[in-house]
């Protein structure tokens, strides 16, 4: 597969009277053709700056970018017709209808007006296309934003938080739409905070933290890289948890005691747990591997796991050593 979007060593620094802030610090990313690629990161990690830079709205301080095999921003005017994008919250003139909004964009982009009706149908706005946008809910505006990005029938679709404001049915429709579009050969780059959705929709992900890439690859690979051998152990009586933990530590296990179970790591064979506890007259009622999901991997990699009693501040995320690669690697 060929990469339709490649970024290498992207840097962007904001300077103000308050000081210097590195929004992007050598960020890398690659998205293969035909994939739905998730782009994850905590607030202020550099996601939107990356997308804006890629789309020519912000000038980078360094690094290389390409879209559809062409270096950008130099070739952006040539490839823009094949890249549909929404960045951050959708914003439209409140007094224009959805049909007017798309029709004006179609005119500006040289897209046939017949495409407007197709897109309105596709995003489910056909029956409300004549109403003023200011009467729309956030979810309807989001549909319109996606519609505006789809108007060009792009080869690459870049969506920043497309499920924001959608109801559960809308989120499911959006998920189906993404898969359908990817199935038709369109590449989709999806920035989102809804990690469950990303895990369901995306073939691959890139995780960004403090302006650097901290993980990248297929969803399965990223999960596998951060899977643990830990198991969850429940015993018949909660009163036996403390003595069970002691017994397991004696055989070299790492044990954390939770209110109604133990999490045990550092044991090659889970059978050793049952044998050790049975020898003490304690019987195991549940022995299950601790599953890892994208959310836990995200929280671990970005250092944004909530800590009881602490209030994490924006930008207070882990500047983990960057995962190198990208640009065809």
């Amino acid at each position, binding site marked *: 597969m060929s990469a339709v979007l490649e970024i290498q060593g992207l840097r962007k620094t904001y300077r103000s009277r308050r000081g210097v802030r590195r929004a992007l610090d050598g960020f890398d990313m690659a998205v293969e053709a035909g994939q739905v690629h998730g782009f994850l990161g905590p607030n202020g990690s550099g996601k939107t700056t990356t997308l*804006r830079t890629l*789309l*020519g*709205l*912000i*000038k980078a301080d360094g690094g290389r970018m390409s879209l559809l095999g062409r270096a950008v*921003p130099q070739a*952006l*005017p040539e490839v*823009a017709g094949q890249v549909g*994008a929404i*960045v951050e*919250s*959708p*914003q*439209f*003139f*409140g*007094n*224009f209808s959805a049909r*007017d909004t798309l029709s*004006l*964009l179609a*005119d*500006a*982009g*040289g897209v046939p007006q017949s495409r407007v009706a197709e897109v309105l149908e596709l995003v489910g706005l056909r029956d409300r296309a004549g109403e003023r946008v200011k009467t729309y809910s956030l979810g309807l505006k989001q549909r319109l934003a996606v519609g*505006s990005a789809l108007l*060009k029938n792009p080869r690459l679709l870049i969506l920043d938080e497309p499920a924001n404001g959608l109801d559960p049915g809308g989120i499911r429709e959006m998920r189906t739409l993404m898969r359908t579009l990817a199935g038709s050969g369109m590449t989709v780059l999806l920035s989102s905070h809804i990690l469950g959705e990303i895990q369901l929709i995306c073939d691959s992900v890139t995780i960004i933290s403090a302006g650097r890439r901290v993980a990248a690859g297929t969803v399965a690979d990223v999960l596998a890289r951060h899977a643990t051998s830990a198991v969850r152990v429940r015993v018949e009586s909660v009163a036996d948890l403390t003595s069970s933990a002691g017994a397991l530590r004696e055989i070299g296990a790492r044990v954390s005691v939770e209110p109604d179970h133990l999490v045990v790591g550092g044991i090659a064979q889970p059978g050793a747990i049952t044998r050790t506890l049975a020898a003490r007259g304690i019987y195991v009622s549940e022995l299950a591997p601790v599953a890892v999901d994208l959310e836990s991997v995200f929280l671990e990699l970005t250092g944004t796991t909530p800590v009881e009693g602490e209030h994490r501040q924006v930008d207070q995320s882990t500047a983990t050593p960057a995962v190198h690669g990208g640009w065809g690697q």
Partner: protein
Amino acid sequence: MSLFRAETRRLAKRRFIRLFALGTLLVLAAIVTGMFLSHHQPSPALLARAQVEADQGYEIALRQAARETANCRAAQGTAAARDYPPCDQIYQPARADFRAGWNLPPAFDFRAEFGFLVTTLAALLAVMAYVIGATCVGAEWSSGGMMNLLLWRPRRLEVLGTKLAALLAGLAAFTVVVSALWTALFALTAQLRGTLAGMTAGAWQSVVLMELRGLVLVLVAGAIGFGLASLGRHTATALGAAIGAIIVLQFGLANVLSMAKAPYVEAYLAPVWVQAWLDKSAVATDWESCDYSSTQGCAATTITLTWPMAGGVLAVVTLLVVGAAMWTMCSRDIT
């Protein structure tokens, strides 16, 4: 071309722009109506009525003069005599002092009055153009429309330049149509309620040239409003700049310069330059100076601001503002 078409469509669809243009048209219509209603052609009936009023006035004045003379004579030899002048010097009205023409409503003299009306039209349309120019790009910036458009057309100068071109084309079309209607309606007013006397081919040419200068003023105002709103990326920037310019650079500056007894204070004020542009010249006076002559005494010295000078100033200001807007469009991040 498709971008230009989209921008002209967008301009025509904006509700604020429609309402503001409509409001301006209503104000202009009110002026036309007021001028029409306040002027009258001297018809035989009006002339007869005016003559009757003049005759009545003459009769009343005659009676008052006779009464006053009688009172004066009766007072002779008493203390009240000092309240009167010599009785033979009391004013005696003459019929010539009571002309029927004074009692006629005014007639509209196109040649004498239309120049001021062209200035009025240009000033109103320039204000409208400034606000529309500002909102046309300011609302795009503040609503995110500009960013959306740049995702489609990632050529910043082309996008901003096309928006400006669409604005100027729209303003030019509007101004030309309204100016033509304005001229036609006042020509009709003169025909029905005044006179078109003296409107030779040269006089009509002068009217057209003045209206063309008015058109340029409207386009300059639109471009400056557009440029300022684009610089601040918000309509309020242009409106704030206009208020600031009026308060600080006009009232404030005029007061300071007057207190400092600076020469030719008017030359620092924008309205005088606008007047110079539209009327072909305007005069600024140094009220502290004395150009003495044995026949005229002390006369203040003056300088004449001509329309080419005013045109140069308008061009420089427009180029600076629009140039700065284009430069920032290219150099600043869009966040």
